[in-house]
């Protein structure tokens, strides 16, 4: 049986990759993909703890997260398309009007 901390280590690695992706990539689509990585790292953590404690709660929580993530991706991509039509760009560093 695979020990729990393996799962946690994988999740931590995925989370770190996701955070670095969100912070460093310019293309918003990549940023979205990195966000999915972060979410899935959380999902892995939930599943891992559910297995560790023998509870089904973590499974249900993970399925909720997947559903919300799907909805979030749909809304996010919609905004992104609308934005692209206006500004001809999907680079996050060029979207900086909202400042002092």
């Amino acid at each position, binding site marked *: 049986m695979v020990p729990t901390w393996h799962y946690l280590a994988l999740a931590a690695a995925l989370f770190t990759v996701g*955070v670095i992706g*969100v*912070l*460093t990539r310019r293309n918003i689509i990549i*940023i979205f993909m990195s966000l999915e990585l972060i979410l899935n790292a959380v999902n892995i953590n939930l599943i891992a703890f559910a297995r560790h404690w023998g509870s089904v709660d973590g499974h249900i929580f993970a399925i909720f997260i997947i559903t919300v993530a799907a909805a979030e991706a749909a809304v996010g991509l919609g905004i992104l398309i609308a934005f692209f039509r206006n500004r001809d760009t999907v680079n*996050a*560093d060029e*979207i*900086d*009007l*909202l*400042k*002092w």
Partner: protein
Amino acid sequence: MPASFLDAVWLVPALPLLGAFLMLLIGSRLSNKIISWLCCGTIFGSFLIALGIFRDLLGLPATDRIYEKIIFTWFPAIPYITDGGNAANFQIEWGYLVDPLSSVMILVVTGVGFLIHVYSIGYMAHEGGYYRYFGYLNLFMFMMLTLVLSNNLLTMFVGWEGVGLCSYLLIGFWFLKKSASDAGKKAFIVNRVGDAGFLLGIFLTITTFGTLSFTGINAALASDTFAMGAPAITAITMFLFIGATGKSAQIPLYVWLPDAMEGPTPVSALIHAATMVTAGVYMVARMNGLYQLAPTTMAVVAAVGALTALFAASMALVQNDIKKILAYSTISQLGYMFLACGMGAFAAGIFHVSTHAYFKALLFLGSGAVIHALSGEQDIRKMGGLWSKLPVTGKTFVIGALAIAGIFPLAGFFSKDEVLWRTFANDVGHGDLFTKILWGVAMFTALLTAFYMFRLVFVTFFGVSRVPRETAHHVHEAPRSMTVPLMILAVLSVVGGWVGIPAALGGGNRFEHFLAPVFASHVELGAAEHAHSLEIGLMVFSVGVAVFAIWLAYYFYIRHTEIPEQIVYRLPGVHRLLYNKYYVDEIYDAVFVEGPVLGKGLATALGRFDLKVIDETGVDGTAWLTRSISRLSIWWDTWIVDGAVNSLGWLVWALNWPARVLQTGMVQRYALWMATGIVLFLLYYVQRYILGS
């Protein structure tokens, strides 16, 4: 209770003013026929009213023949203390004064003016600017009537300047011709010199009398004790006379009148012979109350008049331009009028004004008909033998020439002999020798007058024709609109003098009696009694002189045409001097135009003064001052006003620095801060956990 025509006196100048307004506003859209009817109609209306006024005036007793009509108050009353210490209420009204003098003047002005308007219909028929011509002519009539009807010196000055303006406009009527526009300017500028004198006279009148109205001045003269020869009155009359020398073309300001012949011939007849140039004489006669108190001025007036008469007549002897001869003749005749005024014979002067208006208008209009017939030729050397071709013009012209020469019983005889007799007989304290010299000069001028006029008649109308072939075949008599005024004026030139037949010839001299109330003297003029036989003897003598001069002209210019050339050959200097008009124009040009002191030198000095003092110090200094002040304003605005606003902005900008650094608008930066925060939190709890355990 004034009669109706006297009450309507304001219509006399108003009708021509209406005509002038219509012409100058909408005249360009009217046909020539309408313009002719309208403009002659306004003058004819004025003439009829003037006739009515004259009749009404005759209906009044001689002492009541004065009627003043105030139209409006021009300058409201202000209290004023005169130089003599008298309190006066200085006020100027726009009013009309009807008395024998002004009624005679408006009759002459409107009557002769009407005939000249009618004549102009024919003369100007083929000229451009027909409406403009008649508009100016009507405007002139308005100004002239304002001048002679005004009841005070200031409105008279308005008319005085107005006729000067119209004179300028009409001399330069053909303004595309340089000589014409130059002549207009010359007339205007020379008149300015005289007008300056007139204005000074007006100012002095105000300070001396505290009023400008003629009735007011006469009342002051009657009540106040202004001594004979009072300095103030001598100064006023002298200044006014300077004005008169400008307007009436006397020495030294006569130079503009010969040049004024550049204008259309009817204009020369109306303005520069019959009416405007007599304004000076009228003014002196109007102010006779003052002049009678200034024997020095009277002597100057008489001397200038006699001298001008002689001077101009001598220049007329050798001129070859038909209109120039008549112009010099006009100057000479005006000299007679001033001579009469200077001798205290104001009535004789005005008498000569009226008869001169008839025969000089006739002569000018006749010369216009000749010029018209010869397609614009004015040189009498290219005329001759026109008697049979221009029957009406020729006959009327000879009548005019006989009248001006003073042949019995034409108009000129009575008026000129009245002037000569008064010069001979009046004793106004000039001294016997002086008087007799003036009389001799006047008599000699009469000889010259008859001579040059008949030189003109013989050279133009008789002898061999020297008309060039190309113009000779279409020489034609003028149209009826021109010949009818000529005939009427010819009749007037014959009978015009009969209103003033002197007592010596069994007449009543009604003219003088009619004018007598105006010229009632405030001081006793020593009127020497002379026998009628002496007066008749002098008349016979002067007619004899005139007949001799005519015979001489006949002998020189018909019988022995070589004699004038021989005289020119013998006396080249005299001829050149006369032909070049004593070089007066050249002298004026050298002194006042090109001269180093009064001409160019003065102009250069004034120009430099203008440039240095007015421009560089005054205008540029003001500009510099303005610029400096505005530079100060700029500094204040930039550093104080803007500085306050900007420093407030800078303060806000400085205070918001932390917020500005945080809020970049970049989502990823925010995410980084958030991640950093979370990491710091985690590190804190990890550290607590490690230390706590």
